[in-house]
């Protein structure tokens, strides 16, 4: 069965220049993305794994043009993401939403939840206020919160609840692709399990495609159909989750798998 490709990125490159020293300025070039090609199939979860500094977040941000890349092409539903602008860019971004790592930093502390949820609908001018409210209400219930929560501020919620709000905000625009940047890394295991379960059931219900960025391979195993392994801006290995876990080709992937906590004793 040939699966429809939702997003295709080819030969992405992004360099950062770092200047060090005060009197003797030396410049070092960091390749955050080094000739990376990725294609994301509709309806699956593609995990991007790697250590800090491997370029996984740069990859995610470049796909929705939160940062501009130096070279390469990105096509989402036959639109060239690098050249579109104005209304086309706006409507395309509506189709690609993001969930962030830190539920404490990604919600405006001065806004009630209702306002936070309304904002995307207003920006994209979707429906009148009655229609917007009923949409917000059904979404907030989907993620396990209640109507009275809409009148609260972010600080009145726990980390897990805030992440639920972040998910509701991302899904209110009915996107096709959701980029999840370490969405469970800051949460306790018990809350982590709740959020993963929620993400999985929402994926089933709405036919969502996830690009799931994480450094935790145990989570990858539970949520992803396919995996990309990154290191120093390079794509080291990619393939189906089962195949990567059972039969890693590169030494780096083997090292990553061996470092999973709970494996140490076996390694010795």
């Amino acid at each position: 069965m040939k699966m429809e490709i939702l997003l295709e990125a080819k030969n992405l490159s992004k360099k950062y220049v770092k200047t060090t020293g005060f009197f003797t300025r030396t410049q070092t070039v960091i390749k955050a993305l080094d000739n990376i090609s990725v294609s994301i199939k509709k309806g699956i979860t593609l995990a991007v794994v790697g250590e800090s500094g491997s370029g996984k977040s740069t990859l995610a941000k470049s796909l929705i043009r939160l940062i501009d890349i130096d070279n390469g092409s990105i096509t989402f539903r036959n639109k060239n993401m690098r050249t579109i602008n104005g209304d086309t860019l706006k409507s395309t971004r509506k189709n690609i939403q993001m969930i962030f790592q830190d539920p404490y930093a990604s919600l405006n502390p001065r806004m009630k939840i209702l306002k936070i949820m309304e904002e995307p609908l207003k920006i994209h001018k979707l429906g009148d206020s009655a229609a917007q409210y009923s949409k917000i209400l059904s979404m907030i219930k989907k993620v396990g919160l209640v109507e009275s929560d809409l009148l609260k501020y972010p600080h009145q919620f726990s980390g897990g609840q805030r992440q639920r709000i972040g998910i509701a905000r991302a899904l209110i625009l009915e996107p096709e692709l959701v980029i999840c940047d370490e969405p469970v890394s800051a949460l306790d295991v018990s809350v982590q399990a709740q959020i993963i379960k929620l993400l999985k059931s929402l994926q089933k219900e709405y036919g969502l495609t996830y690009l799931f960025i994480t450094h935790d391979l145990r989570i990858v195993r539970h949520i992803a159909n396919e995996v990309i392994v990154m290191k120093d801006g390079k794509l080291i290995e990619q393939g189906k989750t089962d195949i990567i876990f059972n039969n890693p080709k590169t030494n780096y992937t083997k090292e990553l798998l061996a470092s999973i906590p709970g494996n140490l004793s076996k390694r010795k």
Partner: protein
Amino acid sequence: MKNNILEIKNLKVFPSLNSRLKLVKNISLRLKKGKTTCIVGESGSGKSLTALSVMQLLSSQLSMSGSIFFEGINLLNLSNEEIRKKRGKDIAMIFQEPMTSLNPVLTIGYQIQEAISVHNSLNKVELNSHVLDLLKTVGIPADRVNSYPDELSGGQRQRVMIAMAISCSPKLLIADEPTTALDVTVQAQILNLLNDLKLKFEMTMLFITHDFGVVEDIADDVAVMFQGEIVEQGSVVKVLKNPQHPYTRALLDCVPDAHGRKDLKPIDYAALKELMG
């Protein structure tokens, strides 16, 4: 018992202004000499408070009662002066954030020297050679001795913290989530290092973590904390392979495994409450 280096008895921690609210509720725990005991639990379960109680580093707004015997001496009866002599020398601690625990304007060599000088009077030459020995022990190249903390990676900073902690050959090392902020590969290296040091110096470790994978890697004994209580304790094999308490079982069910063989089950707190009575 001679084998227990640390014995916590009926420890309670509570806000000084509200003694009815117990943050740590009457826990008792024994650490066997030369073994690693892990305290595992979710945020807010009281695991860090327990560790800080042993070091007597609790916030001034918190009080504690009970007793903590270290080599037969009740630490709670000691004066500030006496406890300061034990802190860093007999009992040392490493923390989660290696960046915030190091002074950014001093070289790492200087900071390690400082840690040694507090409890030992050595001359400059002895001090320098001790610092270099320590760096070697924790796996930092000797030429980094004059580096500042910001010039080191997260893993190297944690190694510096470990070097400072073991500088006076403590009998007990308390590690509060020392690898939580690190990448998996670096985490594995640091866990290996701590394990090697434990064996080499016959240290006892009290290791705080929320990660059952880490527990499996490093612990001899485990205590599971939930809402300020130790709900289950025993050897790592016993607790992980055959958990008795419903909370331990529920918590283990949420932990993702590397084989993807099981479904993740979030904790059902209502059902748990019923089971616990």
